[in-house]
């Protein structure tokens, strides 16, 4: 199937006065795709979301969301096919959760009958008739998710969506995003929760000081970054030194004691080394492989080691 972008940014720059918040950012999110948008606070993530929502205009570049230019929408209101969850979502506290959701449903032209089902889906069925002022942070966040899902929009823009959610609800949330993708929708999720987003995103975009320093599938970014794979080898008592001598080249010995070795190698050499280790049985008892995860990849690119 040909790649069809639901979100497109082409060399987009945004400047507030002398401060350049985004510099020539280009990225595209395809249909049925989930992209994680990462970056330190102030890296430009929220500004990027605001640009996609037509809340602010780019200084340069071209933006398309569902094929339309949100820049033309400034002051006119968005189409109903976008669901947005802002960071620290806030509601009118004098209203109940149910009233809040019904209010947004009416604005979006969505049948209010669907609200109760959505509230139950995010775990607010019992608290639906309580005032929002009595809600905990996590409950407000869940109400925020419910409003973002109103009318099953094609594009989901979620800014720190799982903040304040317990592990069970986080899982439910990601299941919902997965279902959204299966129905052909796309999601751009800004998050600091790297471990949970790692397995759930198809591609990762990393912003550093307003520049997109990395964009692609995690495996590709890991490869480009040349981050070492760590291998922990358990040997028989007193056999660690012997294994280290017989294992050969293409690796770096990080640590050794009486019965464990800690080695590191490049991702491409991993299989070869594991095969060599297997040949050293029975001296080698066990092998644990630690491939660099999103945390390491993120640390690499966001710290300034990656390309500008």
């Amino acid at each position, binding site marked *: 199937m040909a790649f069809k972008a639901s979100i497109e940014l082409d060399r987009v720059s945004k400047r507030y006065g002398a401060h350049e918040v985004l510099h020539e950012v280009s990225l595209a999110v395809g249909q049925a795709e989930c992209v994680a948008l990462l970056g330190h606070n102030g890296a430009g993530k929220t500004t990027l979301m605001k640009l996609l929502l037509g809340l602010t205009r780019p200084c340069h570049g071209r933006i398309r969301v569902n094929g339309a230019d949100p820049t033309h929408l400034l*002051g006119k209101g968005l*189409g109903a096919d976008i669901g947005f969850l802002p960071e620290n979502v806030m*509601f009118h506290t004098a209203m109940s959760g149910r009233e809040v959701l019904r209010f947004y449903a009416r604005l979006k032209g969505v049948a209010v009958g669907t609200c109760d089902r959505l509230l139950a889906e995010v775990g607010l069925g019992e608290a639906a008739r309580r005032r929002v002022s009595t809600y905990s942070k996590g409950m407000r966040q869940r109400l925020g998710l419910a409003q973002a899902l109103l009318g099953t929009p094609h594009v989901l823009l979620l800014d720190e969506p799982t903040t304040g959610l317990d592990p069970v609800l986080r899982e439910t949330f990601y299941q919902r995003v997965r279902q959204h993708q299966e129905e052909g929708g796309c999601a751009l999720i800004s998050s600091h929760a790297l471990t949970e987003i790692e397995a759930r995103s198809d591609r990762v975009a990393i912003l550093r000081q307003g520049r997109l320093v990395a964009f692609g599938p995690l495996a590709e970014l890991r490869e480009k970054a040349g981050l070492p794979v760590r291998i922990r080898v358990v040997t028989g008592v007193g056999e660690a030194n012997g294994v280290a001598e017989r294992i050969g080249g293409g690796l770096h010995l990080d640590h050794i004691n009486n019965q464990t070795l800690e080695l590191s190698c490049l991702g491409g050499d991993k299989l070869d080394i594991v095969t060599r280790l297997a040949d050293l049985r029975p001296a080698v008892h066990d092998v644990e492989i630690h491939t660099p995860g999103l945390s390491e990849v993120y640390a690499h690119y966001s710290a300034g080691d990656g390309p500008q």
Partner: protein
Amino acid sequence: MRALVILAGNEIRDGLRNRWVAAIILLLAALALSLALLGSAPSGTVQATPMNITVASLASLTVYLLPLIALMLAFDALVGELERGTLLLLLTYPVARWQVVVGKFLGHSLILLAALLVGYGGAGLVLQFTGGADAESWTAYLVLMASSWLLGSAFIALGYLISALVRERATAAGVAVTLWLLFVVLYDLGLLGMLLVDTGQRLSPELVAALLLANPTDIYRIINLTGTEAVSLLAGMAEAGRAAGFQPVMLVALLLGWVAVPLGLTVVRFQRMEL
């Protein structure tokens, strides 16, 4: 249109929940009833109905109270939502910014109308049942209610303009109080001072009239205190009213202008605001 109704309804519901509506109704009803029952006693020799006396005294007090209530309702309509974070989410929905401004305005203006109908209308009915009203005084009383709504709406619109111009709620509150002082108290004092020092009569009556029309509270005073013969006699404004020759239609149009212009400027400003 649908969005306007939804947004206005939301403001009204919010007003009811926060007991704003109840507080304003109670305040206006207490004011109107106390003036109707206690303040209309000295009607003897001027042959005015208690309702006419109530119109004169109620108009004089409304001109202070209602702009303040309206500004309190409106000053944080936009900046407050911006500060609380609710505006950002609202603007990502399929609703134009002018609809946000006008929808909220309709809600607040209707809250004021309801309060006037219940508060002032209730006092009017009490006067009717106690035999203190006739057809002419009812006309003056209805004009008072309608013009009070317009005056309140004008100050709601001015409150919105403040709300769209500043970036902090506290600043908006300060500007709103200053605006109230300026229009309701200081403007007339300044005008009076100018007339007192103008011993050479260099200020033409036309200029004074124009200066009066440049303040919505003065337009309101002119409408209510010179509107009918009986009330203008009571208010001591009969001669002033005749001399200035203000046409009622023009006065109403000007007051409507004080609603439309600030509201229009609010829309223009809000439309260009980048969040």
